[in-house]
Structures are given as structure tokens and as C-alpha cells.
């Protein structure tokens, strides 16, 4: 069945479907069953499936990650939810030392069907401890899959695939994407792996993670007015990374900006830039450029916050430089501001 729903409703639907179809799926985390339900994504689960299959936890990220792992190797399929990815750092010992290594150290005897969902990125004034994405750090660890959905269809399809996967999957959801509306076909599976081309173009490829897809599509819309046709590629699955779609796109456009929703230095963007430079070396007209967070802790105040995050404007300016174009007058353009979408506190 097809329906037009929000990203958060798509996540909710995926959880309901998986819980209906597989009695070993359970969902837990701090505040998962409360009246807010992780921005709506877990609303109704406890009423529908009971406290055995959907429950809140003590503020014990480290232990609860270990509990999820212990349950996963004992026949369950846990989905452990964090309202902020920053809080996963409290569970990093379990994630880096246990979740990612247990299968290898057991010589392949153990299976770890575990999903860790977390909200990432910008709200307003979220500052340095409620704004990280951390996918570069998770992807650095072999033994984990790392997924960042952007559309409601992907939120739905990738979450279902993640829950069905027999490996640990870190599933990172940008806060601003929760209210994005799109068509979701509940029968359409979205396998973990292949990137998606969000917009076809011939002049330049922008390879994006998470929210940067929204910014890149806006940038493409503006640049199209000047006859510059931008291709936008959504990585979707950061690890394991499937290279083909990305490489084919850049071989065609011969120009590439990597727009990663994370710090540039030592980040996933560097991995992409190295991959593209290596695989597309002869085809590139210009060196691969990278956009991402400024290399500072995230500031709170809006003017500095605006400088911290990459945006459609930074993509446009980078594209103009790369293609030796004049700077477009952006005074008539309307860019995304979150006040139009939601009010605080997040």
C-alpha cells in the first residue's frame, strides 16, 4: 500500500511491521514508550505490543547496549534507541569492543542481529553535545553496518532491512528529516547497500550523507537556473560502502563535491574523496572537494551555528568555484530555515 507520510511515521510503520511479522523484535531505550515517543517514531508501540516488547530503560547506555548485544546473541532482534547519537559515546566500549567484534572472535559462531537507532544533527542551538553524527567513527570500526536514511521511503525500507539483517546496524536519523513528507510503499524493500541517485545531472556530482541531500537538492535547483545540471547521490549506507553508483556518476560528470554531514577532518568525506580520486583519477577535471562541519565543537548561537554547518549556499559557492562560474545572486532565493518547520525545544 502506498501512502504519503512523514519520515517519523515511516520509521514508526517499519517498527510496527517488523514487530508484527517477527515476535523476536523488541524496541527499547530511554523514553521510548513515553508520550513523546522519540519524536513520534515509537508512538503506539507499547500500547500495541505491550511492555515486554517495548520498554523504557534506566539511564545506562553502556549496560543497555551490552544487554541488547546479549539478547541479540540469544535469539532476539533488539532495536535500541537513543534520542541523541552523542549519548552513544557512553556505550562506545560495548560498540567498539564487543558489538563489532563478537562474531569475529567467536570464529563466526555468533550472529548479532542488533539495530541501534539514534537521532543526529542540528535542531536549534543544540550546541556541542546534541549535534554530532558520528557515522565516521562507527564506520571506522569493522563489524558494524552504518546507515543514514534521507527519504521517508528509505527510513521505512532501510529500517526494515536493518532489523532483518543478521549484523549490528547503526541507524542514524537526522532530526530535521523527521517532518519531511514523501510517498512510502510499504511493500517496497530497500536493501542496505547501494547509494541512490536523487537527481540526475551531467555537470557535477554532489555525494551526500543524510541532511546534506536536502541542501544539495536545493543547491541543484538554484544552479539549474544558470544551466548547471547537478547530480545528487545519496550514500545511504556508509558501511559497507558500495562504490559503483558513486564512481559511475563521477566518471560521467568529471566533477565531484563530497558533502558529508560530519567533520571534514578525518571524516567519512575523506574516505569518499580518496575513493573517488583513486577510482576516477583520469576522468576528473578538478580535484574532489569536500564540505562538512567546521573543525570546531558545534557553537550554540545562531550566527556561528550557521557558519558551522555546510548548506546549500556552501555547495553553490563550491560548485561555482569548481566550474569557474560567476557567483549567483542568491538574494531572491529562499533557503531552509527550521523556524518554518518546527518550534523548539529541540
Amino acid at each position, binding site marked *: 500500500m502506498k501512502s504519503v507520510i512523514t519520515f517519523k511515521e515511516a520509521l514508526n510503520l517499519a517498527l510496527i511491521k517488523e514487530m508484527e511479522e517477527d515476535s523476536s523484535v523488541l524496541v527499547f531505550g530511554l523514553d521510548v514508550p513515553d508520550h513523546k515517543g522519540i519524536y513520534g517514531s515509537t508512538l503506539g508501540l507499547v500500547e500495541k505490543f505491550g511492555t515486554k516488547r517495548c520498554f523504557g530503560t534506566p539511564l545506562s547506555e553502556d549496560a543497555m547496549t*551490552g544487554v541488547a548485544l546479549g539478547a541479540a546473541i540469544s535469539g532476539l532482534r533488539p532495536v535500541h534507541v537513543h534520542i541523541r547519537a552523542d549519548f552513544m559515546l557512553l556505550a562506545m566500549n560495548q560498540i567498539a569492543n564487543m558489538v563489532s567484534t563478537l562474531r569475529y572472535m567467536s570464529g563466526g559462531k555468533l550472529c548479532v542481529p542488533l539495530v541501534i537507532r539514534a537521532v543526529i544533527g542540528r535542531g536549534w542551538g543544540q550546541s556541542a553535545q546534541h549535534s554530532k553524527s558520528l557515522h565516521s567513527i562507527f564506520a571506522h570500526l569493522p563489524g558494524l553496518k552504518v546507515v543514514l536514511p534521507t527519504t521517508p521511503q528509505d527510513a521505512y525500507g532501510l529500517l526494515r532491512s536493518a532489523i532483518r539483517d543478521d549484523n549490528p546496524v547503526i541507524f542514524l536519523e537526522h532530526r530535521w528529516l523527521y517532518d519531511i513528507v514523501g510517498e512510502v510503499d510499504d511493500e517496497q524493500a530497500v536493501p542496505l547497500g547501494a547509494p541512490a541517485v536523487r537527481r540526475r545531472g551531467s555537470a557535477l556530482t554532489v555525494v551526500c550523507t543524510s541532511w546534506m541531500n536536502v541542501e544539495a537538492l536545493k543547491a541543484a535547483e538554484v544552479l539549474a537556473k544558470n544551466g548547471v545540471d547537478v547530480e545528487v547521490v545519496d550514500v545511504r549506507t556508509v558501511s559497507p560502502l558500495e562504490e559503483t553508483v558513486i564512481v559511475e556518476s563521477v566518471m560521467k560528470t568529471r566533477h565531484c563535491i563530497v558533502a558529508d554531514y560530519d567533520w571534514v577532518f578525518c571524516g567519512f568525506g575523506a574516505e569518499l574523496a580518496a575513493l573517488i580520486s583513486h577510482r576516477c583519477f583520469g576522468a576528473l577535471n578538478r580535484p574532489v572537494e569536500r564540505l562538512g562541519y567546521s573543525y570546531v565543537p558545534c557553537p550554540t548561537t545562531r550566527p556561528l551555528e550557521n557558519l558551522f554547518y555546510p548548506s546549500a549556499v556552501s555547495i553553490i559557492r563550491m560548485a561555482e568555484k569548481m566550474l569557474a562560474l560567476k557567483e549567483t545572486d542568491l538574494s531572491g532565493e529562499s533557503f531552509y530555515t527550521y523556524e518554518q518547520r518546527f518550534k523548539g525545544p529541540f
Partner: protein
Amino acid sequence: MAMNKEETLSLYRKLILARRAEEKIRQEYFRDEIKTPVHLGIGGEAIPVGVCHCLPEGTKTFGTYRNHALYLALTDDAAGFFAELYGKVTGPGKGKAGSMHLSAPERGLMATSAVVGTTIPLAVGAALANAYQESAGIVTVFFGDGAVEEGVFWESLNFACLHRLRILFVCEDNGLAIHTPAVERRGFRSLEDVVRGFKCHVAAGDGSDLPGVVTATRQMLRLMSAEPQPGLLNFTYLRFLEHVGPGEDFEAGYRRRPTPDELERLDPVLRFQKELRQSGCSEQELEAVKISVDDQINRSVSLAQQAPFPAPSELYTDVLA
């Protein structure tokens, strides 16, 4: 402890297997063929041997890097054990686990770990899975006294007690975190007293006394059946050797060498042998166990030495399912 002779000798065999296997490691380690750090548990064998002896079939067990006696008690698989230590593909982890991460999920030993405290929440998760699946099974987790200072111990204990899970926490208390004594690490008087504040059964015992460990464990399992909530057993023992490696370190200055009288009391093997003799076992019977165990160990070491290393292609297998 009401046990017949057959059961007693079977328990003795497990104790001797753990002891002789580690004595074999001490003999062989200088050859540098066992290329994995070994945390030998000589002096503490009665705790895993005694506790595991009481566990019902199907129990899931988790442990630490000082896991040799636990692995052997649960599996009797000396061949796999030595193969893993020698890094061979015939080991239970195909040589990827080594001494510190031995496991045998098919025999209930789900995981052991080299980062202190890390398997404690896994055990709680396994107990949660038992409750979820409405299984009557129980879970046991072994950890050292150092782990009690990790936040994750308290987080795990709290969650297990909150959900009244069927889990037995077993503290193997040698009073040392590597070389630092408890008195220099703890701002509380007694682990048992603190844990009594939780919804948890608590008992303590002498970990050098194998029949005592068995009795305490059986009693704890009865308590956990009568009033379903977690249980914690704290067993003290003396670590005879250095934290890691095959040597003694009584001369290192951080602890004193026990007197011969103390050693007799603190060595679970000497102590159990004495009891066996008193209860009518002959020297020949004890010697026969030792000969049979040594034969098993020698064959296992020889097999391990001859077994192949994993092929280069094994580097990339078992990362993801």
C-alpha cells in the same frame, strides 16, 4: 555436600584438568609458540569448576579473560583449547580468539572478554532473552573484583534486579586489580553489603574450597528458584601467579608470599585431595585421574602443534554474517 564417589571424582577430574592444562602452559610458554597473553587462574579453579558443576543443562555462561578453567569445565575440550592458544584454525575461534576470548556457544559458553566488566551486561541481555522467550533457563556470569568498580557492573545489576532476571553473578575475588589491592580501590566496606540494597540474593564463600563452592552455588540456585530475582556469589581466592604470564610474582613487592600453611588452605587442589582421601578415595584413584588428564592434555598439545594455521583467506571471514 552430599555427593557420591563417582560425582566427586568427576568434579576432581575437572579441577585437575584446569590445573594441569595451565601447568602445561607454564611449561610450554617459553617456547614462544603460544603467542597470546595468558591470564592463568591457578588458585582460582574451584570457582568456575564448582559453580559450573551445579548449573542446569542449557545454562548460558559468560566470563572474563581469566577463562581457562571455565572453558575446560564447560567443554572438556582440551584439544580445542590448546589449538586456540597455538593460534590454529582447529581452535574454537579459528585462532582469531586466542586465550582471552575463548568461547563455545554450543556448550553454553557464550563469550569471554579482555575488557573488564564487558560481558556482564551481555549476560543480563541473555537473561532478558530467557524471560522474553519464557524459558526457565538461567544465565551465569563470572567477573573479577576489579569489575565491580566499573560503572557497567552497577548498571547491569540494577537492570537485572529491576526486571528480576534469572541471572547468577559470580565474583571471583582475588583482592587484586592487576597489582592494586581492593583497599586502595574501594570506598565501600563490603560488596555483599552494598548489593544487599538491591533486589538480589547475596552470599559469600571461600573460593578455594571446591565442595564449599558447590554447596554455596546450590543454595543460591535454590534461593533464586524460591524467590525469583538475581543472585550474587562472592568467592575469595588467591591468585598464585602474576596477573598475566606464566610466572610467580610474590617477590615483586606488592604482596607477600603465603606461608606453607596458608598455601595448603588456599590451594583448591591440595585441599580437595585431602578431603577426597579423608572420604575414602585411594591414592591410586587420584593418580589415575591425573594420568588420564595428563594424557588428554599431552595429546591435545601435540595435535595443536601439528594443526594448520588459518589460511590467509580467513582474515576477512566472520566479520559480518
